[in-house]
C-alpha cells in the first residue's frame, strides 16, 4: 500500500513543474475575467457591469457585425477550397507528391503571419501583381483598392485558416470507402451527382468540424486584420487592441475579450449541436 502511494506521489511530483508553468495562463484567464467586471477602467476595483454595457455602443457593435461577417465569409470560401484540396490530397498516392502538397498547405500555419502579410501587400497593393496584370491586360484603367480594406483582410483570413479546414475534411475523406463511389458510378451516376449525394453527406462531420474551427479562428483573428486591414478594418481583435492603446480602457478591453470568447464559444456549441443532430438524422435514415 505504501509503495502504491509513494508511486502515485512520485507521478504527481513529476507532473507538478508543468502545472506550475501552466499556472500563469490560468491566472491570466481569471485575471482578465475579474478585470472585465471592475468599476475602474485601469485597475481592479469593485464590481460593475458598466464595461459590458459600454460594449453596446455603435462603434463596438459595428466591429462585432464586421467580425462575424468576415469570419462567416472566410469560412464559406475556406470550405469551398478545402474540399477539392482534400480530395486531391486523398487521391495522391506517390509519397513525394503527397509530401509536397501537405507542406504547401501547412505553410501558412508554420510561417510568421507578419512575413506572409508582406507577400499579400505585394500581391494586392496598388502597385501589386494583380493590379499590374489587370492594368496591362486593359481590364482596368486605374488600380483597384484590394489592400487595407475588407477584401485584403478576407484574402488573408482565407489563406491563414485554409490548413485548419483541409485537415479535418481530409480525415473524413479518407474514411469514405472508394467502393461507394465506384458503386454509384457503375449505376450510372455522374460525378457531380455522386459528389452531391454520397461524398458531401459523408463529409458532413468533417465539414462541420472544419467550419467551426475556421470560424472560431477567424473571429478572433488579430494579426491579419491589423496588417492587411491597416487599422481601417476594425474587427473585434483590432478594436480590443485600440482600447488598450491609445484609449487606455483596460477594463473595457477585458470585457470585449470576454465577449469575443463568449461569441466564439456560442458558435462552437451551435456547431456541435448541429453536427450531433445531423448525425442522428442520418442514422435514422
Amino acid at each position: 500500500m505504501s509503495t502504491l502511494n509513494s508511486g502515485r506521489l512520485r507521478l504527481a511530483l513529476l507532473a507538478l513543474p508543468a502545472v506550475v508553468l501552466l499556472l500563469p495562463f490560468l491566472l491570466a484567464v481569471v485575471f482578465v475575467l475579474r478585470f472585465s467586471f471592475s468599476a475602474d477602467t485601469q485597475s481592479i476595483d469593485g464590481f460593475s457591469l458598466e464595461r459590458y454595457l459600454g460594449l453596446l455602443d455603435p462603434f463596438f457593435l459595428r466591429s462585432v457585425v464586421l467580425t462575424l461577417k468576415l469570419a462567416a465569409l472566410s469560412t464559406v470560401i475556406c470550405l469551398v477550397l478545402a474540399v477539392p484540396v482534400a480530395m486531391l490530397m486523398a487521391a495522391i498516392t506517390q509519397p513525394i507528391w503527397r509530401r509536397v502538397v501537405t507542406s504547401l498547405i501547412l505553410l501558412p500555419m508554420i510561417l510568421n503571419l507578419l512575413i506572409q502579410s508582406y507577400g499579400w501587400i505585394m500581391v494586392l497593393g496598388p502597385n501589386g501583381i494583380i493590379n499590374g496584370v489587370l492594368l496591362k491586360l486593359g481590364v482596368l484603367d486605374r488600380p483597384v483598392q484590394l489592400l487595407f480594406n475588407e477584401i485584403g483582410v478576407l484574402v488573408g483570413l482565407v489563406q491563414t485558416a485554409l490548413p485548419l479546414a483541409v485537415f479535418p475534411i481530409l480525415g473524413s475523406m479518407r474514411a469514405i470507402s472508394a467502393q461507394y463511389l465506384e458503386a454509384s458510378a457503375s449505376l450510372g451516376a455522374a460525378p457531380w451527382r455522386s459528389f452531391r449525394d454520397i461524398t458531401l453527406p459523408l463529409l458532413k462531420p468533417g465539414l462541420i468540424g472544419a467550419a467551426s474551427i475556421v470560424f472560431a479562428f477567424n473571429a478572433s483573428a488579430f494579426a491579419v486584420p491589423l496588417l492587411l486591414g491597416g487599422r481601417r478594418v476594425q474587427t473585434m481583435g483590432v478594436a480590443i487592441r485600440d482600447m488598450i492603446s491609445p484609449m487606455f480602457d483596460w477594463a473595457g478591453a477585458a470585457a470585449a475579450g470576454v465577449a469575443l470568447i463568449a461569441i466564439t464559444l456560442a458558435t462552437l456549441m451551435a456547431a456541435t449541436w448541429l453536427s450531433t443532430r445531423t448525425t442522428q438524422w442520418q442514422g435514422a435514415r
Partner: protein
Amino acid sequence: MATATSITTPVASPAASPATPRAGRGSFGWVMGTLAGLGLLIAALPVVIILIMSFSGGTNLDFPPQSLSLRWYGAAFDVLFGDKSEGTMSAFSAMTSSLIVGLITMLASVSVCVPLSYAVVRSHGRWRHLAELLFTLPIVFPLVVLGVAYLLMTEALSRETGVDLGLLRLAIPHITLALPFVLRNCLSAMSGVGVDLEEAAMSLGASPLRAILHVVVPLMKPGIMAGLIFAFIISFNEFTVTFFMYTIDVRTLPIWMYSRTVSSLDPTTLAISTLIIALDVALIAWVDKLVAGKGSLF
C-alpha cells in the same frame, strides 16, 4: 467570390446530360482541379512572392523584378550585424531578444513536459485525458485575449510589487503557447517506451530515477527534439501576444520588423523575411526527419 459561384452552377447541370457521363466527369474534374489549384496557390503565393522579390536588383517592389541580385541580403546583414546595429531599438538587439526568449521557451517547456508525459503515460491513461484537455486550452484561447490578459496581469504585478520581468515578460506567454505542442510530441514519444525496459533496468539495480534518466529519456529523444524545435519555432514567430506585451526595451524581431514596415515595405525587410522563412523550413524539415512524419503540429 467567383469560386463560390463556380461550384454551385455545375451541380445542377449534369442532370441535363445524363447520357454523357464523360462530359460530366470532365466538368467535375475540371472544377475540382481548378479549386484545388487555387487553394494551393493562395496558400503558397505570399511566400513565393517574398522569395522572388528578395532577390530583386531594383530598389522598388515592382513584380517581376527587372534584375536579380543579392544586394538586399547584404543590406539585411548590415542591418542585423553592422555598425548601425547598436542600441536597444536596433535589429540586433531585437534578434538577440528573440533568440533568448526562444531558448527560454524551448528549455522551460520541454523540461516540464518530459516528466509530465512520463507521469501521464505511467498512470495508465487515467490522467491523460484531463492533462491533454488542460494543456490544450492555451491553443483554443483567442490570442488577442491572451495578449490582453498577460498585459493586464504583468502591469498589475509591476505596479503592485515593482517587479520588472525583463525578457520573461515575453517568455512566460510564449511558454504557455508552446506547452500544448511540446506536450503532444512528448506524449507520443513516451507512449512508445514500454514499462518492461524500465523494469529491466531496475531489476539490474538502477534506482527509479536512474532508470528514467538513462533508459526512458534516451528513448524519448526524437520526441524531445521535436518538442524543442516546435517550441523555438512558435516563440520565434509569435506576433499577436508579443504585440501586446512589448516595451521600448523588450522587443522581438517580428516586432522590430513591424515597426520598420508600418509605413512602407522595403526589400531589405524581404531579405530578412526570407532568412526567417529558410530557418523555419529547415527546422520543420529537421523535425520531420526526426519523427518520420509522426510529429504533431496540431
